Every structure is written in structure tokens, then in C-alpha cells.
């Protein structure tokens, strides 16, 4: 299914970077999970890597405007994330899949995605078509009318992806989107990611380094709430050719970078 493209989507953008963070600090509870982060992301698929507790999830929550930054400057799609007045317009162009995303168990797939589309203030006439498109893109069209509580973990994850992409967001944030997907579904998902990354800014936070190397145009590695490395996946692979622990060059590159960063600080 194709859809009509509206004028504001083809208009040239007025901002340099889709995500522009300068000395960003975000609190998780009382801890400073993101501490002095400097990050600039444009169009493309950006893989967010890092150890547990590095602040990835907190960063994703800040980028999706669920939490307000405690300090520093964060500009999303050209508008300031801390400014309450532009928040509503910004959120219309956002898509978010949390790590533990909640859903209403009795809703069907279609109704849930419709509800999220309505929450993101899509024009009412466009919702049914957009919902059908996004459900088809995640290959759930045959289960579109079954209740969410009857779905398996992988299918639920795909429903989460569907609701994140239903409004064709300019900034798409996916936290662990491939949890529970079988290898075939993961390959399909990578294709979807590449499609999405062609004209919007996609940030994928994941532990699976292969996914990052295969589908991302850019790799961001953070540790301890600060940026460690930002560059091409090829650079990561190259770093892993000589030393480091892991079963693939990408994993070895990842551990090399982390060790270098930890020994330097």
C-alpha cells in the first residue's frame, strides 16, 4: 500500500541535526545516568551500543521526551526538548518503542496500533490506512485481529515496532526491538530498518552487535553516561581485527573500544 506524501514532509528541514545533544545530563532515580553526553545524529540508522547500566535506556527515554533532561541542551528535530510549548508538535513526529513496553491485553493488534496512532495525533482520516500499512510492514497482517494477550513474545515485539512506525516518524527510537524475534524475522527487520533509515533518523539501542553492523549506517557507543565512540560500522569491524575478546570482528572491536575508554579514564 502506498500513501500520499504531505507538503511538510518534502519541505527542506530547518535544522542541522535531528538529534543534537550538548553536555546532556539526565537523571534516573537519583543517579546521573547520562552525564555530559555530546551527540549529533542526522538521517540514517544509528545503532546505540553499550554495557548494561551505561545509560542507554535513560538516553532513549530522554530522546523520546518521556523524561526531561536535568541539565545541558537537547534539541530534537530542531526544537528544544525542555521547552513545554513545542513539545506537543514535536511528539507528533516521534515514534518510540520502550524496552518493556506496555499494552492493553484485551485490545487486538489493530485496535492497539490505532489507539497509539490516535495518541500521536494523526489526522483521523489517515489512521486506518496507516495502521494497515504498518501492520503489513511488520508481517502481522494475518494476526491483525487477534488479541494482544494471545500473541507470543516475538509477535508482541513486532506489534511494538508497528505502533512506533505508524505515524511515519521523523525521529524513531527503538529500544531492544529484536528481543524474541527468530533469525528470519531479524533479517526481515533489518530490511525494514534500512527502509526507515532512508528518510528519517532512527536510533536503535541493542545488545546484538551483528544487527548493528548489518543494518546501521552509524554506530554510537556509550559507557558511564558519556560518548565513547561514534563512527561507521566498518570502523568498528576494523578495530576488531587485531585483538579484543569476542566471536566476531565487530564484537572484538566493541570490547577493544570499551577497554581503551576505561583504561583512559
Amino acid at each position: 500500500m502506498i500513501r500520499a506524501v504531505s507538503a511538510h514532509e518534502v519541505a527542506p528541514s530547518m535544522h542541522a541535526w535531528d538529534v543534537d545533544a550538548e553536555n546532556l545530563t539526565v537523571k534516573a532515580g537519583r543517579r546521573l545516568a547520562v552525564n555530559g553526553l555530546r551527540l549529533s545524529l542526522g538521517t540514517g540508522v544509528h545503532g546505540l551500543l553499550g554495557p548494561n547500566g551505561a545509560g542507554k535506556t535513560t538516553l532513549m527515554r530522554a530522546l523520546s521526551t518521556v523524561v526531561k533532561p536535568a541539565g545541558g541542551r537537547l534539541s530534537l528535530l530542531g526544537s528544544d526538548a525542555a521547552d513545554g510549548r513545542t513539545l506537543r508538535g514535536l511528539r507528533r513526529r516521534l515514534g518510540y518503542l520502550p524496552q518493556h513496553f506496555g499494552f492493553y491485553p484485551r485490545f487486538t493488534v489493530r485496535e492497539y496500533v490505532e489507539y497509539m496512532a490516535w495518541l500521536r495525533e494523526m489526522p483521523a482520516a489517515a489512521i486506518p490506512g496507516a495502521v494497515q500499512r504498518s501492520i503489513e510492514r511488520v508481517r502481522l497482517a494475518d494476526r491483525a485481529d487477534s488479541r494482544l494477550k494471545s500473541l507470543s513474545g516475538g509477535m508482541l515485539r513486532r506489534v511494538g515496532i508497528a505502533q512506533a512506525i505508524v505515524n511515519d516518524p521523523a525521529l524513531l527510537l527503538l529500544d531492544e526491538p529484536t528481543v524474541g524475534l527468530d533469525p528470519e524475522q531479524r533479517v526481515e527487520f533489518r530490511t525494514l530498518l534500512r527502509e526507515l533509515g532512508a528518510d528519517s533518523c532512527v536510533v536503535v539501542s541493542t545488545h546484538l552487535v551483528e544487527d548493528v553492523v548489518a543494518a546501521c549506517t552509524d554506530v554510537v557507543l556509550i559507557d558511564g553516561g558519556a560518548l565513547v565512540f561514534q563512527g561507521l560500522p566498518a570502523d568498528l569491524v576494523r578495530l576488531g581485527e587485531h585483538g579484543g575478546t569476542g566471536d566476531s570482528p565487530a564484537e572484538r572491536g566493541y570490547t577493544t573500544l570499551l577497554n581503551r575508554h576505561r583504561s583512559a579514564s
Partner: protein
Amino acid sequence: MMRIIRTELRRSNALTLALLITAVSVAALGTSVGLWREQWLRFTYNHATALFVLAPLAMAGGAMLGRRERRTRVEELIGSTGRPSWQRISPTAAAMMVAVAAAHLLVFAGGAIWVARNATYTPAGALFVPLTGVVVLTGAAWLGLAAGRAWPSLLVPPALAVVGLAMQVALAERTSDPTSRLGNLALVPQPQSYDWEAVTGRAVLGHLVLGAGLAAAGLLLAAAASWRPRAAAGAVLAGATAIAVIVPGTASARYYVDLDAQRLVCADGAPQVCVTAVHANRLPEVVAPARQALALLAKLPGAPKRAVEWRSDVVYVPGSDEPGGFRAAPGTVQFQLDQDGGDVDPQLVDSILNGAGTTYNGCPRIDEVAKYAAGAWVKGTDDLQPADGRIAYGDQFHAEISDTVGKLRSLPKAEQIRRVTALRDAAAACRTDLLPILTGGARP
């Protein structure tokens, strides 16, 4: 938004709540069928008293829906979306309102079909009471919604139901005091004493304002993000409660006498027998005994030629002695139809003959021995069995009656007639010392 409302109706607990409300309402009405089967005014009262139970249940149902967001951990996802909170809860609140209204009105419609077949008097404002009930139920459900959003624990819904019930019980104790205004808040006020008493518009308005206040406060609290809407909700609730307490007046001013309901409906033929419009469906049963009693009363000179149902011109205040009522016009004997339980007085003849046709003529009831004796004399028996439901007399009372009648019958016929006629005239004039008239001045 309409699609979302339909989704919520199908997938939330709105339907379950509607089923629960329907079942409880039907159960409550089913146990009192005899009371309301034939009159609109009583039917709307009995249907509305189920609110005692339904409002707490609606509150609990709303709380279960309100805690859904926190329980399913949807909050994080919703936090990244842009819709303001009052727009977000509108479909949920609308679904609750539709469910609750449908359940309440469906039960009303079902009962109304039945009543419409039997009832003979349809008051003008009969529909306002269930509509007010719908507003009160919606208010309770929305208040519960706000409570569930604020405290998502599983303890909250049953706690709300029980607390609501406890408050009702406490308020119900206040309604037994006729001068209290706090009883205006109770959803089960005192019932009407007679079938022609209708609820005043101010009482209905009081409940309507209370329901609207609950609804507005619930909506404001559910959508509140800062302290301002919460303060406004508190103010709205306080204001609505104050109006609901003050405007309807005291409990004794809750009902008024509906004169249309008291309009007389008479049977064909002579002598004329009339009942009030609200009892017109009982006229066929009443005609024969009334005419029989009139024939018996014809023994006395100046006997009445018409039997008319007794009506009151004031609202009866429970516990008071004065039933009020129209004084009987000359040539008319009055009888009372309204026995508890809705059945026609099985001893109608005896009741009419009591006091030789003077018991229900608007005078206070005293000196029953003389009246019973006169009635027994007219009937030709030794004792009288009127279905005087409120009072149970002991054996000594009945022995006195038989005694008096026996002594009366020992006198010459003309003297008997003279004395009973004198008693009848004295009772009609509301004189109090009646027994000496029958016994010739000497009290046994």
C-alpha cells in the same frame, strides 16, 4: 475519537460493569415486584433506590478501569505521545458513561413495559428520575476512574465499594429524621406513603446537581496534572454537595400531592363508586363490595348514595397522627384502598361499614369501640373485621364490641336506629365522646 470509544466499549470493563449493574438492578426490582407493578410513581422510586447499591459498584468499576494504565505499564509509552491528558481520558470516560446509562435505562425500559400495561395514571415527569439516576451513576463511575488513576492498587476498587456503601448507610440513618437536610444526599430516601405522592422537582434537581458535581469533579481529578484542576475539583464537589443538601428542603418537603393522580374515576351504574385515577385499575374489584356496603348503610335515614375513595390533601409525614384528607361531602361515604402490598382491602365491606360509614371521612380516629360496634350492628353481625392494618386489637376489645352490640340489639328497633344514626352524625362532625351515644349515657 468515535473509533476509540467503540474500542473502549468493546475491550474495557465497561460491558462487564453494565452487566453487573443490570443484574443487581433486576435483582433489586425483582424482590419488590408487588410494590411497583401497577404505579409509575412507585416504579420510579423502586428503580431509583437500587442506586444505593449501584453507585458504589459503579465507583469500583471506574476504579478498575482507572488503574489499567499503571497496571499494564503503558505509562512510559504514553508519556512520549502528545495528546493532553483530558483528551486521553475522554474516550474511557465516554465508554463508562454509555455503559452505565445503557444498563440503567435498559432496566427502566424493561420494567416500564410491564408497568405501562397495568398503570392507569402516567405522571408527566416520570422519565426525569431515571435520567437523574444515570447522571449520578456516571458521576460515581468517573470519580472511581479518578481514584483508580491516583491509587492503582488492587485494594482500591472493593474498598471504594464498601466505603460508598458505608456512607450510604450512615446517610440513610439521617433520612428517618424529617427535619434533617443531610438526608437529601441519600440515594434511598423515605418512600412515598400514598400512591398519589410525587417527588418534587426540587428533590430531583438536588440529585441531578449532586450527580453532575460528582461527574465534573471526577473528570477534573482524572485529567489533573497540577494542583489547579484538583483544587477546582474539590470546589466543584463542595459546591454541588451544598446545593444538593440545601435546595430540596427538609425531608418532609420531598413529596407533594399530585392532584392529577387524585382525579376521581367512577364506575358506571348506580349507586356511584369512584376511585382515584392512580388506582383506577382496581375499580372493577371495588364496585361490588362498595355497593353492598351502601345497600347495608341504607338502613339508616340520610344514608350516603355514593362511595368515593378517601384522598389526602397533604403529604403524610410518617409518625404523625394527622392523616389529613378531604372531609366527606354530604351523601358520600369514603373508603381507603391503599393497603400495604398493593392488594385491594379484602375486607372492604367491613372497612366501609366501620363507624357506620364514618371512619375515613377526614376526622382523627378515636373511640374505636363505638365505631366498630356501630359497624357490626349495620352489618348484622357481632363483630367487625376491617383490615385496619396498622392496629391489632386484643381480645378484650372484641369482647367489648360484642357486648355493646348485644346490648344495642336488645333495645327496640326504632331506638337502635336512632342511636346508630346519632353516632354516625356525631362521628361525621368529628365529635369525640361516641360510646355514650350507643349505650345511652352509661359507660360500662
